[in-house]
């Protein structure tokens, strides 16, 4: 069995979400009311029997540190396995310096000491299901130096706009990794997931730092594509989401209100772990009306909830109407308040403004702790 360690990268200069990301990295965003986005990559790794996991964080580490803790809730052997948070120097004066390569280089001594032969690098802002051990085996069998995971889409012109796409030859060899310019609906979206030998990884980081202080892993791979055998593997799975802006965050949650889709992402043989908060079950009071929604524990629901995802410990008051919204944990939607197409951040309270309806294409956003 191949020995593998994993890296979950939670900062990527390509992705930024105004508002929500002021408080936490995308990996720490609430997902489906109960999870955080990073639960998906970490559970994938744990379920793949990969229990040495490094999570790289550069900004606002508090909520991630608190949530990941030392990983006991991810079913990782406390002695043999390890979930490690690694930090890097964040260059706020110019974000172009905040590359993944720099983060890895800052922690090179730790990477060099890893005893595993292979590394899987996977992002903290994508939600999908993947057996990484099977992918590593596929990588080994193919004889490739580097394997990149991609998602075949027909919506490249409207979705995945902040992502890279892979240009592949017929043998699935990678000719080029380039930004998705939105010109083609059919494309191979790079899922920011790399598989390679640990030695190859270390060589690439050192080489990248030599060539440019602002090179990322993708840049050095593009330069080395004639020397290295770089191949793509298509991800097989019915649900893939990259969370890179408000719209993709909102839509990736809402898509899972389709139960037939959700039941493919959540299966009993592939549990998604998260940290418990020991909240009690949901109390639906007399007169509550709830349709087509997902509700996390600890909520008290007196009003109407339709096509919405409600986080832990939310209060929905009498006569309130919540439609097409994402209400994050511990917020309050007061008596008689009507909200539609909103993202309500944690601990916010909508009490005094009775109508919050987004008429634009984008959902509205209410900041954490705000009273409206």
């Amino acid at each position, binding site marked *: 069995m191949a020995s593998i360690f994993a890296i979950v990268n939670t900062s990527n200069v390509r992705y930024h979400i105004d508002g929500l990301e002021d408080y936490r990295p995308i990996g720490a965003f609430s997902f489906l009311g109960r999870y955080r986005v990073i639960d998906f990559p970490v559970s994938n790794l744990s379920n793949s029997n990969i229990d040495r996991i490094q999570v790289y964080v550069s900004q606002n580490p508090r909520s991630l540190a608190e949530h990941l803790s030392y990983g006991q809730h991810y079913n990782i052997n406390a002695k043999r396995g390890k979930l490690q948070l690694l930090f890097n120097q964040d260059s706020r004066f110019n974000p172009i310096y905040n590359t993944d390569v720099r983060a890895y280089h800052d922690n090179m001594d730790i990477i060099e000491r890893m005893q595993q032969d292979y590394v899987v690098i996977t992002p903290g802002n994508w939600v999908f299901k993947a057996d990484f051990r099977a992918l590593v085996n596929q990588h080994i069998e193919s004889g490739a130096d580097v394997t990149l995971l991609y998602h075949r889409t027909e919506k490249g012109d409207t979705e995945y706009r902040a992502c890279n796409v892979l240009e592949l030859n017929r043998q699935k060899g990678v000719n080029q990794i380039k930004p998705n310019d939105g010109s083609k609906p059919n494309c191979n979206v790079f899922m920011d997931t790399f598989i390679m030998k640990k030695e190859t990884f270390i060589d690439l980081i050192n080489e990248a730092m030599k060539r440019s202080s602002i090179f990322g892993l993708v840049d050095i791979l593009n330069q080395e594509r004639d020397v290295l055998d770089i191949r793509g593997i298509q991800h097989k799975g019915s649900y893939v989401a990259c969370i890179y802006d408000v719209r993709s965050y909102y839509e990736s949650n809402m898509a899972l209100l389709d139960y037939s889709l959700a039941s493919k992402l959540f299966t009993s043989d592939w549990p998604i772990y998260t940290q418990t908060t*020991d909240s*009690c079950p949901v*109390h*639906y009071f007399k007169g509550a009306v709830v349709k087509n929604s997902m509700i996390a524990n600890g909520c008290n629901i007196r009003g109407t909830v339709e096509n919405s995802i409600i986080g832990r410990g939310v209060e929905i008051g009498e006569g309130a109407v919540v439609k097409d919204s994402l209400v994050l944990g511990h917020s309050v939607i007061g008596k008689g308040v009507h909200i539609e197409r909103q993202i309500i951040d944690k601990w916010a309270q909508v009490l005094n403004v009775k109508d919050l309806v987004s008429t634009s294409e984008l959902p509205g956003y209410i900041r954490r702790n705000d009273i409206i």
Partner: protein
Amino acid sequence: MANNEMLAMILAGGRGSRLKDLTNKVAKPAVSFGGKYRIVDFPLSNCANSGINIVGVLTQYEPVLLNSYVAGGRNWGLDTRDGGVFVLPPREKADSNLNVYRGTADAITQNIDFIDQYDPEYVLVLSGDHIYKMNYHQMLKFHRENKADATIAVISVTMREASRFGIMNTDGEGRIVEFEEKPAHPKSTLASMGIYIFNWKELRRLLVADRDNDKSSHDFGKDIIPTMLGEGRKLMAYEFKGYWKDVGTVDSLWQANMDLLDEKSELDLDDNHWRIYTEDATEFPQVIGPDAVVDEAYVTQGCHVEGTIRRSVVFTGADVKTGAQVCDSVLMPDSSVGEGAKVIRCLVANGVKIGKGAVVGSAGSDSITLVAKDVKGVE
């Protein structure tokens, strides 16, 4: 913080045979309650919240699930360096054979060596099958202030109910003068909650004497407490005000679950200062479908509701399909109600499947229907 002043011993060995098929394979303390909990979560969470670090759990009847459930104590945060939850089934020892626990007192007697290791000042004896939230530290304070030899928690019940309980007759200061087990003509309405604080040295002496007494039934209520009263010891009644329920029967278990729907009920599980902890389920959040009706319900993680639920409590992983109607019922973990089926005034046991179109229970029934086996659908 090392604090072995008082350790707790939870009596969890009973079958709870009046719960019928619900306890065929598990002991009563492991029976599910309130959507996501098990009964034993209540005393264990109370211990954690009261600052008790060391908890012994005395198991006997069908202990496999219960032993693995409580072992280590991580679910209640009791897995500290100094503390822990210790599973204590009957065991063979160097100087004695394997003997079953002959009674509640004998269960403690057989574990004198365990308690001695920690050299506690006080021992708290609890029952593992009651639903309540209580601060044992307050009770210890009362015990100390009164310089009592033992303190027994009591709750006021109605005169009619009093004949079902062990009743404490007290003087004006709350000192127990008489104990009557299930009296036909009760003189008081203070019922024992089966919660005792003893001074360990004193209790140890009594237990050693009780061990070799052939006439004793080795029970706290029947033997130890009467002996102490006979010796003129100071036994105090500590009156508890709040929600407390012995969920001994199918009807009372159903009722205790229903109490969670009542906003005025004193059993509040949504209290940040006194959480009830339990095992961590990995199911996804509950899904309420496009045509579902959920009106007056207590529903937890992992449930999938497409039908109608009224005045009901739905446990982890339960499934209510399209057109199904669940009224005044309790659906235990992983049970399912098929399309168009009707479930009225029922308690549906763990994993039970009710087929398409089946009808179980009825609105006018005197008692709650326990559905412990799969019910075939009607085509």
